[in-house]
C-alpha cells in the first residue's frame, strides 16, 4: 500500500464528525483535567478510558489522545497561576511562569505556554509520522529474543529514571512484574497466585490496577489531608503574548521540541526530564540568561516546548514496537487492547488505516489544542473554583462505574480499591507508581518472549544474543545500568540526600 493509499484509508476512517468531535471533547477534558491540581493528565486519561468502550476503536483512541494532548498543556495553567503544577511535566514551567504571574503578566506567560505547546506538538507529531513507520518496518524482523532484550532495556530505563531514588523505582517495577504473574501460566496453563478463584485466573484487570494506582490514592490523600489543595489564583493581567515574544523564543521552542522528541521516543523517560533539559539548555544559550528564574518568557516557552515535544514522540515506541513510552501511553495501550488491537509492527500492516487515522487526528489535535487552550486560559478561574471536596467523591463514583464496566465484574472494583491502598502507601513512601504500571504491562510480554525464545532454542540461552539487534539492546541495557550505578555511587560518595535525579 502506497503512502497516499494509506493516507486515504486513514482519512476514510476519521473523516467523520464523530471522530473529530471525540478528539475535540478529549482536548477539552484533558485541558480541564490537567488544569485541576491533583487531578493530572494521567488520571484524566484513566477516567476517560471507560467511556471509550462503547465507541469505535479509532474514535475511542482519538478521544484518549485528545485528553493526553490537552492534559499536558492544561498542567501549565495552574503551574503559572497558582504555582502548583497540574502535571509533573509542568514543574519546570513554574520557574519562570509564576514569577511572571506575580508581576501581573500571567496572561502573557499562559499565551506563550500555549503557543510553545502547539508548536512543539506539531513538531512531535511530524516526528511520529516520519519515524514510527520506519521503526515498525525495522521491527518486523524482531523475534522473541529481540523483543525480550528490547523490553528488558525499556524496563531498565523506566526503573532508573522514574523517581528520586533508583532503588525505589526498581522496587516499584518489581512489584508490577510480580503482580503481572498472577493468573494462569501462559505456557502450561497452571495456576499462579490465583488461590482457586476464577476471577484471578485471567490475571488482574489492567484498568482496575491503573485506576487503583493513579486515581484512588489521590482520593485517599484528600481524605488524609482535606485542605491540602487550597491555593491562591493569580489574575491574568493586561499584558498578552506578542508575536515578537514568540519570535524571540522560537529557537528555544524548536530546540525544546527536538529534545522532547528525542527523550520521548526513548521508553520511560517522560516529559518532566525533557522539560527541565529544554529549560536548562535555553538558559545556557540565551542572551537573557540572568533573567531565567525571575520571570523570563523564554523560560516558559522552553519548558512547555520540552514537555509537549514528548507527547507525539512517546507514541513512536507504542505504535512501532508495542512498548509504552510513559504512563499515559501505557493507559492508551490498554485502550488498544480493549478494542482488540495490538500495537506493534504488525499493526502497520494489518491496521494501517487506524495508524494513518491516528496520524491525521494527531495533526488536527494541535489545532484543537490551540482553540481550546485559548479559551481555557480565560476560563481557568472557574475550573480552579470547582470545590475539590465535591469533585473527589465524584471521581470515586466514576472510578467504580468505569472499572465495573470493563468486565461487568464487581471483583474488579475490589481490585481497584486494594490497588488504591497499595498506591497510597507507595505515595506516602515516595515510591513512584509509573514503573509499577509499565512493568505490569511489560511483565507478561517480557516473560512470554523469554520463554518463547527458550522454547525456540531448546533452552539454549545463546539465542538471546543471536544477532546485531539483540547485541544492540544488551549493550544499551548494560550502558544504562552502568550509568545508573555510576550516578548512584557518585551520590553515595557525595553523601546522603545529594545527587538525586529530578522527580519524573
Amino acid at each position, binding site marked *: 500500500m502506497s503512502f497516499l493509499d494509506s493516507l486515504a484509508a486513514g482519512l476514510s476512517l476519521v473523516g467523520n464528525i464523530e471522530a473529530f468531535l471525540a478528539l475535540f471533547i478529549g482536548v477539552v477534558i484533558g485541558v480541564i483535567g490537567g488544569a485541576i491540581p491533583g487531578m493530572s493528565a494521567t488520571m484524566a486519561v484513566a477516567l476517560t478510558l*471507560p*467511556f471509550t*468502550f*462503547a465507541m469505535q476503536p479509532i474514535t475511542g483512541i482519538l478521544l484518549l489522545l485528545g485528553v493526553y494532548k490537552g492534559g499536558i498543556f492544561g498542567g501549565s495553567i495552574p503551574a503559572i497561576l497558582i504555582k502548583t503544577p497540574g502535571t509533573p511535566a509542568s514543574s519546570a514551567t513554574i520557574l519562570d511562569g509564576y514569577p511572571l504571574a506575580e508581576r501581573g503578566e500571567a496572561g502573557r506567560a499562559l499565551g506563550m505556554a500555549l503557543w510553545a505547546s502547539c508548536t512543539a506538538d506539531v513538531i512531535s507529531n511530524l516526528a511520529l509520522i516520519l519515524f514510527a513507520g520506519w521503526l515498525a518496518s525495522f521491527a518486523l524482523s524482531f523475534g522473541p529474543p529481540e523483543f525480550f532484550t528490547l523490553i528488558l532495556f525499556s524496563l531498565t530505563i523506566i526503573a532508573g529514571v522514574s523517581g528520586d*531514588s533508583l*532503588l*525505589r523505582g*526498581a*522496587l516499584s517495577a*518489581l*512489584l508490577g*512484574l*510480580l503482580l503481572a*504473574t498472577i493468573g494462569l*501460566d501462559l*505456557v*502450561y496453563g*497452571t*495456576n*499462579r*497466585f*490465583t488461590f482457586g478463584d476464577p476471577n484471578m485466573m485471567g490475571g488482574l484487570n489492567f484498568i482496575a490496577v491503573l485506576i487503583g494506582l493513579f486515581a484512588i490514592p489521590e*482520593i*485517599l490523600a484528600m*481524605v*488524609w*489531608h*482535606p485542605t*491540602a489543595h487550597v491555593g491562591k489564583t493569580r489574575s491574568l493581567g493586561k499584558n498578552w503574548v506578542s508575536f515578537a515574544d514568540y519570535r524571540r523564543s522560537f529557537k528555544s521552542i524548536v530546540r525544546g521540541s527536538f529534545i522532547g522528541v528525542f527523550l520521548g521516543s526513548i521508553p520511560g523517560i517522560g516529559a518532566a526530564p525533557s522539560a527541565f533539559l529544554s529549560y536548562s539548555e535555553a538558559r545556557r544559550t540565551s542572551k537573557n540568561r540572568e533573567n531565567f528564574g525571575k520571570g523570563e518568557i523564554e523560560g516558559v516557552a522552553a519548558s512547555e516546548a520540552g514537555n509537549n515535544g514528548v507527547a507525539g514522540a512517546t507514541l513512536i515506541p507504542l505504535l512501532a514496537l508495542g512498548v509504552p513510552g510513559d504512563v499515559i501511553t501505557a493507559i492508551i495501550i490498554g485502550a488498544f487492547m480493549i478494542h482488540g488491537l495490538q500495537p506493534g509492527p504488525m499493526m502497520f500492516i494489518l491496521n494501517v488505516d487506524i495508524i494513518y487515522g491516528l496520524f491525521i487526528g494527531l495533526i488536527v489535535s494541535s489545532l484543537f489544542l490551540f482553540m481550546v487552550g485559548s479559551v481555557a486560559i480565560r476560563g481557568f478561574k472557574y475550573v480552579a473554583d470547582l*470545590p475539590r*471536596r*465535591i469533585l*473527589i*467523591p*465524584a471521581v*470515586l*463514583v*466514576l472510578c*467504580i*462505574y468505569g472499572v*465495573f*464496566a470493563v468486565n*461487568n465484574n*464487581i471483583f474488579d*472494583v*475490589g481490585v481497584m*480499591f486494594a490497588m*488504591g*491502598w497499595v498506591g497510597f502507601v507507595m505515595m506516602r*513512601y515516595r*515510591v513512584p507508581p509509573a514503573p509499577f504500571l509499565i512493568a505490569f504491562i511489560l511483565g507478561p510480554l517480557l*516473560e512470554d518472549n*523469554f*520463554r518463547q525464545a*527458550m522454547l525456540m532454542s531448546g*533452552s539454549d*540461552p545463546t539465542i538471546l544474543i543471536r544477532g546485531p539487534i539483540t547485541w544492540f539492546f544488551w549493550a544499551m541495557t548494560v550502558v544504562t545500568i552502568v550509568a545508573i550505578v555510576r550516578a548512584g555511587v557518585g551520590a*553515595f560518595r557525595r553523601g*546522603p*540526600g545529594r545527587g538525586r535525579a529530578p522527580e519524573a
Partner: protein
Amino acid sequence: MTERQVQLRLGVGAIAMALFLAAIAIPNWVSSPSNVGNIVLSPLFWPYVLAGFAGLTGLGLVIAGLREAAQDPAPETDDHAHGPAWRRLAGMAVFMLLTMYALPRLGMVLTTMLLFAATAFLVRTRHPVTAVICALLVPLVLYGFFAHVAGVAIPQGEVIRLP
C-alpha cells in the same frame, strides 16, 4: 518521615516480601507440572527470579537507609498526620468494604449515592447541599450513560430497579 526511615522501612518490607514469596507463597500458590524439562521454562522460574531481585533491592534500600544521617530533617512536614487524619482514613477503608458488600445487594446506583455523600462529608465539604445534590445526580447520570449508551449491565440490587 525522614528519608532514612523511608528507605529502611521499604528495605525491610522488600526483604520480608522476598522471603515470604520464596519460602511460602511460591511453593504453595504456584503450581508447576512435574514434567518440565528445564527450570527456565517452569512457571516457578519467573516468580523466583523476581523474588530474588526484590530481596536484593530491599538489601540495597536498607544499606542506603543506614547511610542516611539519622538526624536528617523530614523532607515534608506532616502536621496534619494526627488522630483525625487516621480516623478519616480508617473511615474510608470501612466505606470501601461496605461498598463491596452493598454493591450486589443495594445496586450500584444506590450504593454510589451513599458512598458519594459519605465521602463528601468525610472530607468535610463546605458545600453540603451541593454534595447531596451531586450525590443523587452523578450516579444517575453515570447509570444513564453506562446502562443505556455503553450497554453495560449495571447491578440493580434488591431495593430499587431503574429503567
